[in-house]
């Protein structure tokens, strides 16, 4: 393994351990690590909502802006002051969760292949977040704002873009006009609006994007920010004075670290660092990486146009087209560039049921590497070969804890491309074909390599989503145990526990037998 690969692998294992630990405390729906994108959005909503109020009460003249901000910070602390602090701390939180989101996507290897689009469109967001935030500091027009504005202008003046150095706007008190200040206010509203637009692009290839945290996480985060606001309200520095250099400053390192970095190096040095890192992020998808599996294929004679695959595809890779031969009907169609080759669509298709009597099972939408027919044959073969007091079938996922190690005389293992590929009818079929219990495993929710495989499987098996597991299937013979790749021992323990439990139940004497003509022909 190369140094790069082992670095990524090490980071991933560490991250997954942290996430599993947080799962125990927050539950996966409330686990901040699993919803960093949604949290980032949440902070943006808080910033926008508080920003509207702050803008309304702001006087935008050079002389008045400082006074008006100080007025609502102190005199109106119970409203304007709290909203100002919320605005500031949510902006800081945004930087933190955005960077963690980037790091997490990196360690999970979500920067190449079909995901290049989400990755590349994420990079400009960093610049936009920084541009929005730093502009906010200028508006306060205290010594910190003065420092940041001048440092930023000195940085930009290194580029040959302005015929007149922008720094000259801040040279003497007389140079700064109300008009220039209105421009700054305009920028501090305009850039965040561009950020929203860029976010919309960022999510173009994500279906059902997770853009709002769960209620508990949202409330917990808001409460945390409110407490912070009351304990440590945001205050301004002294009024800006262009005749004096701000000397010692309480700077916001989340945003303004670039200024000390520039004075430590040089404007050219900071440009080299910033463009170098940006280029590095942009070029990352070009590094060698594993080839993508063949994409999903639709079989028109087996597609009835039910739209389930369309609803479940995590990357919006399916469109429903008018059926060429059956008027009024629709036909699924895969957009090759968007398809992640996850197989979640095959698990959604009603034609994937193994109970169909045809010898060669062909479903509406199938994965060339792991066709549903091959899965049925593998399952029948492995379950028939089982021996022991209780027989178990395990359905697992290649991206999660490696189920291949669980195979034994009484345990048949079926390793899927994604657990989302599992049509629930396969569980029933396994039980009817001789298994006494079925264990379904895969990545924990939020770790799923294809985002929604875990969630859809959970919902299909519990009857909340189509295709659902039939209610006649005895629930105590099905166990669901999610386990990430480092949680092999947990998974083994779950399997042992399940086996013991099944032993207390005994073999299922009353199970309905497989009843298809095909099975009867085979089993007599």
């Amino acid at each position: 393994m190369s140094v790069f690969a082992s670095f990524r692998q090490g980071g991933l294992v560490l991250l997954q351990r942290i996430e599993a630990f947080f799962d125990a405390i927050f539950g996966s729906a409330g686990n901040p690590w699993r919803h960093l994108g949604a949290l980032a959005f949440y902070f943006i909503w808080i910033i926008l909502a508080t920003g509207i109020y702050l803008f309304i009460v702001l006087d935008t003249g050079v002389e008045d802006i400082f006074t008006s901000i100080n007025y609502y910070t102190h005199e109106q602390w119970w409203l304007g002051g709290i909203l100002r602090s919320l605005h500031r701390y949510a902006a800081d939180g945004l930087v933190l969760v955005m960077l963690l989101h980037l790091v997490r996507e990196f360690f999970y290897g979500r920067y190449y292949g079909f995901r290049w689009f989400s990755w590349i469109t994420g990079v400009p967001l960093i610049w936009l977040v920084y541009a929005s935030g730093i502009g906010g500091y200028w508006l306060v027009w205290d010594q910190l704002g003065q420092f940041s504005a001048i440092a930023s202008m000195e940085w930009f003046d290194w580029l040959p873009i302005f015929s007149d150095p922008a720094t000259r706007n801040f040279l003497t008190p007389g140079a700064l006009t109300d008009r220039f200040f209105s421009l700054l206010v305009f920028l501090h509203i305009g850039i965040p609006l561009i950020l929203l637009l860029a976010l919309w692009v960022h999510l173009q290839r994500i279906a059902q994007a997770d853009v709002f945290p769960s209620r508990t996480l949202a409330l917990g985060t808001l409460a945390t920010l409110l407490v912070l606001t009351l304990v440590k309200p945001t205050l301004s520095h002294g009024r800006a004075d262009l005749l004096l250099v701000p000397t010692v400053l309480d700077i916001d390192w989340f945003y303004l670290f670039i200024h000390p970095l520039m004075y430590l190096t040089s404007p050219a040095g900071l440009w080299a660092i910033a463009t170098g890192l940006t280029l590095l992020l942009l070029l990352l998808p070009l590094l060698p990486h594993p080839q993508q599996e063949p994409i999903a294929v639709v079989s028109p004679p087996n597609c009835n146009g039910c739209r389930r695959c369309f609803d479940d595809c995590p990357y919006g890779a399916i469109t429903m087209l008018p059926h060429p031969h059956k008027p009024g009907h629709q036909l699924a169609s895969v957009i090759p560039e968007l398809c992640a080759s996850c197989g979640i669509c095959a698990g959604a298709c009603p034609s994937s049921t193994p109970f169909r009597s045809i010898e060669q099972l062909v479903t509406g939408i199938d994965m060339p590497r792991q066709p549903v027919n091959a899965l049925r044959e593998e399952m029948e073969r492995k379950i028939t070969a089982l021996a022991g007091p209780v027989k178990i079938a395990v359905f697992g996922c290649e991206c999660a804890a490696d189920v291949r190690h669980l195979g034994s005389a009484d345990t048949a293992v079926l390793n899927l491309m994604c657990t989302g590929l599992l049509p629930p009818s396969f569980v029933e079929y396994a039980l009817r074909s001789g298994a006494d219990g079925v264990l379904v495993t895969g990545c924990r929710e939020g770790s799923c390599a294809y985002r929604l495989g875990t969630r859809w499987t959970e919902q299909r098996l519990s009857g909340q989503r189509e295709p659902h597991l039939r209610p006649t299937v005895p629930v105590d013979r099905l166990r669901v145990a999610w386990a990430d790749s480092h949680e092999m021992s947990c998974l083994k323990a779950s399997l042992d526990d399940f086996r013991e439990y099944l032993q207390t139940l005994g073999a299922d004497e009353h199970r309905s037998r497989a009843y298809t003509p095909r099975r009867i022909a085979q089993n007599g």
Partner: protein
Amino acid sequence: MVSKSPYNPLVLAGQALFYGLFAVIIAYFSTAPKYTHLEPEISLIKLSFSYHGEPVGECHKRTPEELAKLAPNMRAPISCPRERSPIKVKIDLDSQPLFEGVAPPAGLSKDGTSTLYKRFEVPSGEHMLSVKMNDNARIKDYNMVREEKVTLKPAQILVIDLRRDHGGIFIE
């Protein structure tokens, strides 16, 4: 395994701990550690101008022969070179050289303004400041000179500018 019931006191304490940790990280780095932008007893001299230098050559009256060679619509009687002079600057502080440089005119045909922006950190206190500039390539020596005794308070900014409306070098 910890029970995931939201009312388990261990779970609640864990949540409070991590929300608190998040708050502490945000609160701390939002204003700390302090950054010293300028050490005490230091002042700043900013040299900045945006200035159109003089044309590089004399204008001259075209002779009738020269005029005849031009297209009829181009026959202006006086021809001036478009190119502007670069601005040469030399600054001494207490007779020690502080800066010496040239700001070339902008533009492909060198007919734009010359701009410069430099900042110098100097000890606060009384200084003898000497600023010399040249905005005319036809004159060899510095054609603008200003010497001044300045007293800089700590953190004070002194601006050296070059402005026609202030009659050349301008110290503020």
